[in-house]
């Protein structure tokens, strides 16, 4: 860079700025690289570079975007081999051979992939590096500003007001200008000029606004780091079934149980659309009921830092069967891998509809031995079919004998009010009683308050930075060269941002200076020139 002002007079004004502690909007001179070949220095200056910061910002946005265009795996699916395989089959159908590559590159779990995390880490380091790099220059700029500036620097600023031959001594003129600046909320510093004849004035406003950027970015870093760190301390059980009246301990060293004490559902006037559903939960600790709360979707139960969120609900049935003599017959419920026996003392079995029917309704299977045959009941639950209280639930049953699954012996809804009897097996009667199980998500997320506070500080910081402007003015008061006994005054200003608004602001300042000068002098300053 050429510094020879006599050769390049025009460049002078622009070059002058860094001398007074950095140009307004541009990054301050970065720490000078000692050696281009030193790799740590190279990485450092890359992290500090603004282009890199903006690039990373955009990269993060694009990566996040990709995750919304490629289907993502359900969290935790990796531990369910069949589910995972089904997902991958779908993906292969969608992307063909590319699918394996996408899987390998973590695109199906993008936000947890190594490269996405690395991206976030790089952004965090970028912010830290940039902050460290800017700290000193900024502190120097706002802590020890240059009061004495060159005439060409003043001339180079766009906002200027000049007053020539003001009939005042320079000290009086200095006081007038300083009072005008103070009225405009400026902090004022003065120094005598090099030649001892004039006075330099420096004034600034809202210099702390420069520091707010550090606060907000520090909050951003803390937010990311804390959120990432805390993720390792919480736990989450995604769907825990709470059957009516049965206390559940969710594990994870919790020393209390929670019991589903009732479920209610409310519909809109159309009678079909669900308006709200509620689940009353009782917390049992040390054998005592310590708390009950009715939760809804928007209002979970929090007990000792563990949250119980109402996610959904499911019909359950208590099924039982009796033979001709009225004695209970053991029923066997079908598990995913074959029949299982889960008969309660009363001969009841809890049907929780593990399957879905072809028309997407809750479905389950039940087996019973009758007259040396195995009877299979396929039960589908139709929630939308209206049945009043006291009637049998809206259960559609297909009954099969042995392995003849193509020839149902019964194919209808269970009767409204009488027990179900299958043709040919009338000695056996089946009764069903309806209830509702709730599906809760139980989780402990420690430290969310801390993350939230950082978020709040950051938001506040951004707002303050955007609405405050670091503004600086320089003025020089010197004895007039044309009219003895009078002063020449030049005031010039520079705003960090919002230059157009600053134009108006500066005009107000100039008016104040003008008024102060008029008030302090015997006659009007003449002539007056504003550019």
């Amino acid at each position: 860079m050429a510094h020879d002002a006599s050769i390049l007079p025009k460049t002078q004004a622009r070059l002058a700025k860094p001398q007074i502690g950095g140009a307004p909007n541009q990054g301050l001179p970065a720490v000078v690289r000692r050696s281009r070949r030193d790799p740590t220095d190279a990485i450092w200056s890359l992290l500090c570079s603004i282009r890199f910061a903006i690039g990373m910002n955009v990269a993060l946005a694009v990566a996040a975007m990709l995750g919304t265009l490629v289907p993502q795996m359900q969290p935790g699916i990796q531990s369910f081999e069949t589910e995972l395989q089904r997902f991958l089959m779908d993906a292969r159908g969608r992307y063909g051979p590319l699918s394996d590559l996408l899987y390998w590159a973590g695109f199906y779990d993008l936000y947890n992939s190594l490269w996405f995390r690395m991206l976030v880490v790089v952004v965090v380091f970028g912010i830290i590096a940039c902050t460290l790099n800017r700290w000193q220059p900024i502190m120097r700029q706002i802590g020890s500003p240059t009061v004495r500036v060159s005439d060409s620097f003043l001339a180079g600023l766009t906002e200027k007001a000049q007053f020539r031959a003001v009939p005042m001594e320079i000290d009086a003129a200095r006081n007038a200008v300083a009072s005008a600046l103070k009225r405009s909320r400026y902090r004022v510093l003065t120094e005598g000029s090099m030649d001892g004849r004039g006075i330099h004035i420096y004034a600034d406003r809202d210099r702390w606004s420069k520091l707010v950027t550090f606060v907000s970015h520090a909050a951003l870093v803390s937010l990311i780091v804390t959120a990432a760190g805390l993720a390792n301390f919480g736990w989450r059980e995604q769907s825990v079934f709470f059957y009516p009246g049965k206390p559940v301990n969710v594990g994870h060293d919790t020393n209390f149980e929670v019991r589903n004490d009732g479920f209610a559902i409310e519909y809109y006037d159309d009678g079909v659309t669900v308006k709200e559903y509620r689940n009353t939960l009782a917390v049992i600790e040390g054998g005592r009921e310590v708390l009950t709360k009715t939760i809804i979707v928007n209002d979970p139960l929090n007990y000792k830092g563990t949250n119980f969120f109402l996610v959904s609900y499911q019909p359950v049935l208590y099924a039982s069967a009796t033979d001709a003599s009225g004695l209970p017959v053991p029923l066997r419920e079908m598990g995913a891998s074959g029949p299982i026996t889960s008969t309660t003392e009363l001969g009841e079995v809890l049907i929780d509809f593990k399957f879905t029917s072809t028309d997407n309704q809750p479905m389950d299977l039940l087996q019973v031995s009758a007259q040396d045959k195995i009877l299979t009941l396929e039960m589908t639950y139709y929630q939308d079919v209206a049945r009043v209280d006291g009637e049998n639930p809206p259960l559609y049953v297909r009954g099969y004998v042995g392995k003849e699954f193509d020839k149902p012996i019964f194919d209808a809804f269970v009767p409204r009010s009488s027990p179900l009897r299958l043709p040919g097996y009338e000695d056996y009667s089946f009764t069903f009683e309806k209830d509702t199980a709730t599906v809760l998500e139980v989780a402990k997320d420690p430290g969310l308050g801390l993350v939230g506070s950082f978020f709040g500080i950051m938001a506040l910081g951004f707002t303050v930075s955007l609405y405050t402007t670091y503004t600086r003015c320089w003025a020089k008061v010197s004895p007039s060269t044309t009219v003895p006994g009078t002063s020449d005054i030049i005031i010039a200003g520079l705003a960090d941002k919002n230059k157009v608004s600053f134009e108006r602001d500066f005009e107000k300042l100039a008016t104040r200076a003008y008024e102060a000068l008029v008030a302090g002098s015997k006659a009007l300053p003449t002539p007056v020139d504003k550019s």
Partner: protein
Amino acid sequence: MGFEEYVFGLNEATLTSAAYVCYLAAFVFYSAYLISLSSRALRVPQREFATLMALAGAGGAAGGTVDVNMDSQEGERPRVTYAPALGRLAVGLVVLAWLCMTIAIGQRWVESGHYPVVTLYEIATMLVWGTTTIYLVLFEGILKTRALGAFVILLIFCLQSYALWFIPGELKQTVQLVPALRSYWLIIHVSIAILAYSAFAVAAGAGLTFVAKHYMRSRLASALPSEAAIEEFMFRAVAVGFPLQTLLLITGAIWAQEAWTKAWSWDPKETWALITWLTYAAYLHVRVQRGVRGITMAWLSLIGFIIVLFTFMGVNYLVQWFGMKSMHTYSIDNGAPAGLNIAGLLMVFSFVALLAVALFGWLRIKFPRSKTRQT
């Protein structure tokens, strides 16, 4: 349901249509205002400093945005102009449109029994309302600039055209709130979203104005404020939107923690809100750190707004076409026909446009090497 109820003899459909006509008329009058301004170069004779000060104190003739040409010939007097009257008429129409929209939204609120922001139609309507509000308050009220009206109102008109013409009639009906949305957070969170995105819409209107000023060599361009002024107005709108966007993410996380059990779950909608936030953060860094002030900023704000549109409305289509799951789908669950309708095509188009403009804009971001570059 939805369009039949009458209040004061005016139903929602009538009111929204009235607003639509007002916007169109306002656009015409804003344009006429600009033409009228450009038909004469506003010349102010050289004045004394004190007089100029008084002028500046009064905010200038047209809200401080008129270039006061001090080099003009001494003594020439401004000719009679209809510009102020046309401008006032245009603003009056916008206020009228705003009133119509406000009443229409109020009616829908009363009728549906909930804050009407759950279907795509309602959201688009709210965006129209919000953009008008931010425009009136920020540009007409605080910044006292009228010359950007034409482009902002044009944008509002396009948004409302989308709401009125491209959303199928059956999706304009009110729906019942699902349990997850039955929370006061619906009002807080969605209102913030509307205001944030509206502010970005206003910024995009300023961006359009900037592009027009930059590339048009006609007389009309002379009626517009200087590029520096337009750029600053644009920034002021982004400065309204960005903190709101930050708040949007916070309130969203709080609500999600209550209703969806998890503060952040990378749902497409929240991810896109984050993308929007990052985009405008990039905008601010380009401006604040690099000191870029030129046409680049206009392109960035337009890119930003396309992303906003996608966040606000496009995510629904993402759900339809890519089979993505989202808990934030407004009307899809309410029987929206799957497949490409015109609104869908519009979204595809804007997505392609987004990529093109993003590329174009990125190429245009000139990263000045010199640390001393100004303006």
